[in-house]
């Protein structure tokens, strides 16, 4: 009987599930922040916290235990050298799950899982800059409004403004290439440049 078995099955057999959880923990370690379904985030959390506990112990034995669970030595290295030292004074509760609401398409509840300590915004930065560049290509006016909001809103705002500057630097290069090929599209690109 399935009494007191609390682990989520996630529609997978045990080996498949363990492999997926290991991969997700490695993604969390490398990116500091992962957007996934709420069920998977809740399943990842205990594994991730146990790995941080191993990282805090820090011996070669614990390092091997972490590798045997995660199968990715580079991720274990960043875990032991960068992430675990941040949590030396914290006794558990190393990760945070933030609920996002339902996903379009299958209406599954989504969530962000991230490390609690200060290193966490890194993943958000890379993600933000990627999406910002896309948003700028289509609707630059909206991005400007978002930048103004970010200025007033929070303490993280200065970082985000810097991110916006980066894609703007990259964009003219791409438009220069297209300008050499077709003069018509080049004129559109210059107008975009003035907008941004």
């Amino acid at each position, binding site marked *: 009987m399935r009494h007191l078995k609390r682990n989520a099955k996630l529609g997978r057999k045990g080996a498949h599930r363990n492999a997926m959880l290991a991969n997700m923990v490695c993604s969390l370690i490398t990116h500091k922040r992962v957007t996934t379904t709420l069920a998977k985030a809740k399943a990842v959390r205990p594994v991730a916290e146990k790995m941080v506990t191993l990282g805090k112990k820090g011996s070669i034995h614990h390092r091997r235990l972490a590798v045997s669970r995660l199968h990715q030595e580079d991720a274990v290295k960043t875990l032991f050298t960068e992430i675990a030292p941040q949590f030396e004074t914290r006794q558990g509760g190393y990760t945070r799950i*933030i*609920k*996002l*609401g339902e996903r379009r398409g299958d209406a599954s509840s989504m969530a*962000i899982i991230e490390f609690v300590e200060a290193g966490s915004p890194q993943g*958000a930065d890379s*993600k*933000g800059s*990627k*999406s*910002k560049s*896309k*948003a700028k290509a289509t609707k630059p006016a*909206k*991005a400007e409004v*978002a930048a103004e*909001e*970010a200025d007033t*809103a*929070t303490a*993280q*705002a200065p970082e*985000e403004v810097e991110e916006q500057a980066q894609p703007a630097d990259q964009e003219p290069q791409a438009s220069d290439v297209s300008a050499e090929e077709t003069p018509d599209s080049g004129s559109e690109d210059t107008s975009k440049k003035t907008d941004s």
Partner: protein
Amino acid sequence: MGVPKRKPSRSAQRKRRASNSVLHLPQLSVCPECAAPYVPHRVCPSCGQYKGKQVVNIESYG
């Protein structure tokens, strides 16, 4: 075995069925940052903030 003494009236039958098909709207709060409605304990979908922190860049979910 216990057996119903009366056939349920049409009213009772309809009330029973209607109560199972009522649609409930989600209980919404007003975002303290942007004053848009949002579901409690979730990230605000219009400004991307949660508990006063910028959690999500909204452009990526537009």
